[in-house]
């Protein structure tokens, strides 16, 4: 088991390095530090001296990938790539381009706000999806099933923006149930969180129900289910005791992979509801064209995704012993 986990993590290392190289290539080579300086200092009326100054102050004055002026290992270390991108490997995010804030500490303080909204949305969403999917599988072939599926397709065809704007209008402005947007720390954040969580669940539940319903139908078509029914077990017992356990494998792939990503929050929800999490941090950085932050966030996002994949593989071996022997 342990060797499997270690091997799985070792597999991920080249991918992490690949992501690091790719982001560095995008942000330092395709978009040179000169372009960055020009975008930040303003496109017009910027002197070459000002650009040089800005680059020196923010550590972009070195060559991008290979420093021809140095000797030995310094040829590689005295470069923007080594100074700015390689430290990301040990999660040293450096400072932002615009306000010189410490990105690492900003991430650590903001991720709790992201988590406060994404964790309840996610758990409630998955729970409801599985419950409804099992109900549809139980009533399969009836009108209830048919209309459930139709409702699912309709719900997933509606833009997420509609749920947000409509929800804010109806629940926030007209019915005055919750504040429209905002955030507070600790226990006071509760009243601000209800609306985004409700809307977040609504906007994702259609896709989920449809997916899990297929999972359950696939599972209930198998031989062991027929055997269980032939034994005279009730349909409920078949569904809960037999189908649910075996359906855990596809459910896990879907669920575990997104768990690390919960730290990241949602770009859309956080901007709409003014939640000071990592999603709105990214959006703010895009709007102010702060490349250091965007680069860090792209890298962090990939890291969380890769962590999700590793967790998925590990959880597989826990629920399905067959996987271990492959």
């Amino acid at each position, binding site marked *: 088991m342990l060797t499997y986990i270690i091997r799985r993590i070792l597999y991920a290392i080249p991918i992490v390095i690949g992501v690091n190289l790719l982001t560095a290539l995008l942000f330092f080579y395709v978009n040179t530090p000169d372009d960055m300086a020009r975008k930040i200092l303003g496109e017009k009326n910027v002197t070459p001296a000002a650009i040089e100054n800005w680059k020196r102050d923010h550590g972009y004055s070195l060559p991008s990938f290979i420093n021809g002026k140095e000797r030995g290992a310094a040829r590689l270390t005295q470069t923007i790539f080594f100074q700015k991108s390689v430290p990301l490997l040990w999660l040293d995010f450096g400072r932002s381009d615009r306000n010189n804030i410490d990105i690492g500490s900003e991430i650590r303080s903001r991720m709790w706000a992201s988590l406060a909204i994404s964790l309840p949305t996610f758990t409630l969403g998955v729970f409801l999806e599985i419950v409804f999917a099992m109900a549809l599988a139980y009533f399969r072939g009836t009108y209830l099933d048919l209309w459930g599926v139709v409702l699912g397709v309709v719900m997933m065809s*509606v833009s997420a923006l509609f749920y947000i704007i409509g929800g804010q209008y109806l629940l926030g402005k007209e019915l005055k149930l919750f504040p429209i947007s905002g955030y507070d720390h600790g226990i006071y954040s509760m009243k601000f969180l209800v609306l985004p969580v409700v809307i977040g669940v609504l906007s994702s539940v259609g896709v989920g129900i449809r997916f899990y319903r297929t999972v359950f139908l696939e599972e209930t078509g198998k031989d062991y289910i027929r055997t269980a029914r032939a034994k005279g077990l009730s349909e409920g017992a078949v569904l809960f005791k037999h189908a649910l356990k075996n359906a855990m494998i596809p459910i896990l792939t879907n669920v575990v992979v997104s768990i690390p990503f919960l730290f990241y929050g949602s770009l859309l929800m956080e901007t709409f509801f003014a939640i000071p999490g990592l999603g709105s941090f990214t959006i703010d950085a895009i709007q102010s064209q702060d490349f250091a932050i965007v680069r860090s966030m792209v890298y962090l996002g990939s890291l969380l995704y890769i962590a999700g994949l590793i967790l998925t593989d590990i959880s597989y071996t826990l629920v399905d012993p067959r996987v271990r022997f492959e």
Partner: protein
Amino acid sequence: MPIILSTDLIVYFLIAMTVYFSVGVRREGTLRTAWHELKRKRLAMVSMAILAVYLGVALLDSIRYRDAVVDGNGAAVRSAQGSTVYSPQALSLLDRAFAGSRLDTEKTYSAPFAAHLYTKESVELADGTVARDYPELKHPGGHWLGTDKVGNDVFFAALKGVRTGVVIGAGTTIIIIPFAIFFGVIAGYYGGAVDDIVQYVYTTLSSIPGVLLIVAFMLLFGGSGYQGGFISEKDLAAGVFVPNDRLFWLCLILGITSWTDLCRLIRGETLKLRELEYVQASRAFGVSGLRILYRHIVPNVMHLVLITFVLQFSGLVLAEAVLSYIGIGVGPEMGSWGNMINTARLELSREPVVWWNLLAAFAFMFAIVLPANIFGDAVRDALDPRLRMR
């Protein structure tokens, strides 16, 4: 004087593909059986008809030409060299068909089918006194979905969004299909180092969350005004007006983030096909690898391409609106549902509420995404029901 943008080529290609497949279903083969199964589903047929209407609107909006400039007497203006002078703006057939809606602007908001403006103004009455009242519209009842803040017709704006939606939904996949097929097929067929490299590339690319990769790309390249297509430097220098719509870039970038799924599917299918008897037989006959790929493998993975194409369509249309909303979508002067929603985002919080802008954008979007979802499911079930789990 016709003007063809790179995104127009996408629409033309889409039309050509539709024609090709509608001819193809008449021949014998898997397509024909799939079509027969599809035809029995009434809902899928209705969806197809709706999608065809959208495609038609997109085509009308993709055929554009510049008019010759005419003087007061209706004679064409000639330049000093004697050549005809064309207006800088290339209007599409859709622009021309709805010239009324496009040009009949009002002062500001007006409700659907209204005869009066939505806001009160000082109006001079017949007896010369001035009163606060809702002034009459210039074109009462002429705006089916009302007008927006600057008085433009909402129905026309929503229609202009059709082309953007169709281009994003279809163009993204069209651009990446050749790459996904090529890499997927060689990875699956040759295996070994080729397979490792291709797998490494797509795993790395797919580890970067799609929206973040799009953010990075748009931040870096979104500013460049390249439109592609048949616009020469000479045209641009002569002042041909082409808005920087960023549409082509958006398709390319969305494509880069979404080709990995298709590539993975094709690789898996090729792994299976490689072991089949007829492929083994042609290998035994000494048929070259490339020829086997071309004759036997590629035609047999095409159904995956078709399925991915229709299934990705709806997601991409929805993504366009969200990206435009975040500010990394198509350019602001481009008609798109995302831009409509973005400009109208605060209209529900004003008093009295202006709802028709948002509702029109959402309704037009819903009316293409829902049929696309239904049709996509039907196509997948007809071609390869095993894929339902993915």
